[in-house]
Every structure is written in C-alpha cells, then in structure tokens.
C-alpha cells in the first residue's frame, strides 16, 4: 500500500496537478472579497432607520400614552381622592375637636362637692376622689355617715339582712362610681391624644388611629355595661327595701296593705336614669 502511494506521489504528473490546485486555491483566497458588510454604510443606515422607526412605534408612542395615563392618575389622585385642601380642612376639624375636648375636661372636673358636716364631707370627698384606692375607706366613711348595722337586740334579722344588703350595694355603687370617674379621665386623655395625632396624621395612616379609637370605644362600652349593671343592682336593692318594708309591716300588723298605704318609710321613687 505504501509503495503504491510513494509511486503515485513521486509521479511528475501528480506533482504538476498538485501545484495547479494549490495555485488555484491560493489565487481564489487572495481574490475573495473581504467582509465588506461591516463597512457597508448603506446597510448600517438601513438598519438604523429601521431601528428608529421601530423605537418610535414600539416605544415612544406607548411611553407617551403611559405618561398620559400616569398624569391622569396623578391628577385624579391629587384633585379627587386626596386634595390637599380637604386634608388640611379635616386636620383643622381635629384641632377644633381637641380644643373642645380640653374645654369639656376642664368643665367636667369642676368640683361639685357641697356637703357641710364633717362625716358627709369625708364620704363625699372619697366619692368624688377619682382614686380607686379610696375604695378601702368607703366602708368606714359610709358607716360614719349612715350608721352601722343594727344589732340582733335592736332589729329582727330580716331588717338587719335588708340593711346589710342595702349598705353593701350602696358601697359597691360608690366604689364603681369612683372607678368610672377614673376610667373616664383616662378615656378623655386618650381621646385628646388621638385628636392631637389627627391634627398632623396623613390620610393614609388615619385608619390606624381609627382602629385604636374603635378599640377604646369598645372598651368604653364595656365600662358602660359594667356601670349599668351596678346601677341595676342599686335599683334592685331599692326595690328590695320597699318589699322588705311591706313584708315587715305585714308581719307586725298582719296587713301588708296597711304597710303599703300607711307606711312609706322607704320612699318609693321612680328608678333614676334608665
């Protein structure tokens, strides 16, 4: 095999053929046009023109529309949803509310004390103190003013029980009144704090204050319910007194009706308030 190739390669004809082929290929390589595309100005301009047109149609026009839409939204937001003038006006209402709340607190805390004698004065001072710690003194102050329970020698047990219940409910009512006064002061303080914040709070953040106010209002409703419950107990104790009086009268005289018509010791009064 090798001999065959050696014989062919050494052939003069083959050598001549190889030279001609190499020459042709070399000539063609030398004369082939170079990559003229990168320097073809016309082609570049054509592409740039196309690109410009594409950018105009595909980007510039939609971006103009985008600008217009955003501008419309900004105008709508500024003039319809959140006009600055309305924001400031609402903040002005908060200022008005704050001033009024401060005025109300000053007024509602004006002393209403008017008792003249020492014991009632001390009881009254405790009742109006707004200090829940005064609850511990109420029993003593109450007894100083209204007396202590009758003894077994001076009153039947039914009377002692009725008086004990009446006094207990009365003292509980006083303690609840003191607590409500104290709670009301806290509510007023928080209310003013919220109004103070509302004077400068941005509309977007206002719902946070509203949520806080709602929570406090719910809490305040709970205190109202608690106070009303105590009021019901007090009114029930009054009814209990009236009933006890009639029962006692019927026991002594054998005629409850006589007690009803002849002995209104415990004044039968319409329930107050509610």
């Amino acid at each position: 095999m090798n001999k065959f190739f050696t014989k062919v390669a050494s052939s003069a004809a083959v050598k001549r053929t190889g030279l001609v082929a190499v020459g042709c290929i070399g000539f063609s390589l030398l004369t082939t046009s170079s990559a003229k595309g990168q320097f073809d100005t016309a082609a570049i301009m054509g592409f740039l023109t196309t690109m410009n047109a594409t950018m105009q149609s595909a980007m510039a026009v939609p971006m103009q529309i985008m600008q217009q839409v955003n501008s419309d939204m900004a105008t709508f937001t500024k003039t319809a949803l959140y006009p600055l003038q309305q924001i400031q006006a609402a903040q002005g209402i908060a200022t008005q509310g704050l001033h009024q709340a401060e005025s109300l607190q000053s007024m509602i805390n004006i002393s209403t004390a008017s008792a003249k004698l020492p014991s009632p004065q001390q009881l009254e001072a405790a009742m109006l103190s707004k200090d829940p710690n005064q609850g511990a003194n109420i029993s003593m102050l109450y007894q100083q003013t209204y007396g202590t329970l009758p003894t077994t020698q001076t009153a039947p047990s039914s009377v002692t029980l009725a008086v004990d219940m009446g006094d207990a409910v009365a003292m509980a009512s006083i303690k609840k009144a003191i607590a409500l006064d104290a709670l009301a002061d806290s509510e007023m303080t928080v209310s003013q704090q919220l109004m103070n914040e509302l004077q400068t709070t941005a509309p977007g953040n206002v719902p946070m204050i509203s949520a806080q106010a709602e929570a406090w209002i719910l809490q305040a409703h709970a205190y109202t319910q608690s106070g009303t419950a105590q009021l019901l107990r007090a009114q029930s104790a009054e009814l209990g007194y009236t009933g006890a009086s009639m029962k006692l009268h019927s026991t002594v005289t054998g005629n409850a009706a006589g007690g009803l018509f002849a002995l209104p010791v415990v004044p039968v009064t319409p329930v107050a308030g509610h």
Partner: protein
Amino acid sequence: MARISKITKRIALGCLPLAALVMLTPKPQANGQFDIFSALLGTVTGMGDTIKQFNADTAEIQNMQKQILYPVQEFNNIQSNATSVVNAYRGWMNSVFGLNLASAQTTSGQALERQMLSGFTSTNPSAQMGSLFSNAYGSLPTPLQATLTHVQAIDAGDASAQAGMQMSVMADSAAAQNVQLANSIESEALTTSPGSAPQLEAQALASELNSMAIEHKLLANQLRAEATRLGYAGAEYKQGASTSGNAVQGIFGGAK
C-alpha cells in the same frame, strides 16, 4: 507525457469552480454584524410590547379607580344626599334639642330650675347652687330638730342631689358642644374627598370616646345618687333601731 498534461488540465479546470465558490462565500464576521442589528430590533420591539402591556394594566387600574372604586358621579350623589339630610334634619333637630323645658311656678323653684337648665348656654355650674337648692328644698335640720345620723344622711343626700344637678348642667353643656362638633364634622363631610373622609371618621371616633367618658361621669353620678338613696333607707332603719331599741318601731315612726 501528453496524457499526464491532459489530466493536469482537467484537474485545474475542476478547481476553478471551487475557487469561485471560495471567493463568493461571504465572510462570517459580516453575518455577525447583521445579527446584532436584528437582535437590537428584537429587543426594542420586545420592550415596546412590555410597555404596551404595562399601559394596558395601568389603564385598567385607572379605569377601576375611576369607574368602580371612586366614581366621581357617586361622590357628587353622596354629597348631594348628605346636603339633603343636613337641610332636612339639622335645623329641626337643633330646635327640638333646644326646647324650653322650664315649668316651675314659684320664685325659688324657678331660680333653681333656671340654673339646672343653664347648661345649654352656659358652660359652668353655678357657685350659687347651694343657696338655690336650700331656698327650694330647705336647710339642714339643727341638732335640736333631728339626730346626728338623720342630719348627716340629709346632708349627704342634699350634696348628692346638688352634685347631680350640677352634673346635669355640665352634661347639657357637653351635649350642646358635641352637637356643635358633630355638625362641624358633618358639614366638612359635605365637601370632603374619599381620601379625607377617614380623617373625619377618625375625628368622630375620637370625639365619641370623649363623649363616652362624659357618659361614664354621668353614670358615676347616677351610682352615687343611688348609693345615697340606699343610704337614706338604711339610715332610717338604723335610726329606728338605735333610738327606740327596736328597728321595727323605728320604721313605724320611732325615727322621727
């Protein structure tokens, strides 16, 4: 020899098309340049499509805001309805709220009543309440006229009654001020924007809390009055027991 030359010529002629093919084949670099332009055009077109989609979404949001969430026509209707409510009710309600309740006939009664009902126009309880009260209801009994327990109970009862009357003046005043503030908030709501309405709502809520605080003060006063009433009743039993040695007798008259 001639045969070899003939073969050489044939091969040379065969190479010519090959050479022409090599000459005419474009260089790969030129193709690359054109690909970049095409890619750029593709990118620009793609960006344009993205912007168009963005615009479509934004326009949809805008449309939703204007047509569904905050239709301007509805603003106007709401404000118009609110104005109708104000026109229909405010004046009438204020006149009902300010109705004159006075009905006392005696001079002392009228003086006390005038003070008790002064809260609508005045903001302060009167320092004269004590004298007005005693003019209408009398003074405390002397030690010669009643036992100490009785006098103390009456003193506490009178004080509670006066406190209630003073508190009623302040409550009326607070109510009048709250009505005024409520009217201001409502008036502002007639022209406010949806964005500012929550501000007014928050103000109303804060004022409501303040109003409830005043209600708690009033409730506390009611409780004190009830306690005093119970104290009166208990004192009556106790006094009967202590003066006669028999509460039953006290109930029937021993405490007098």
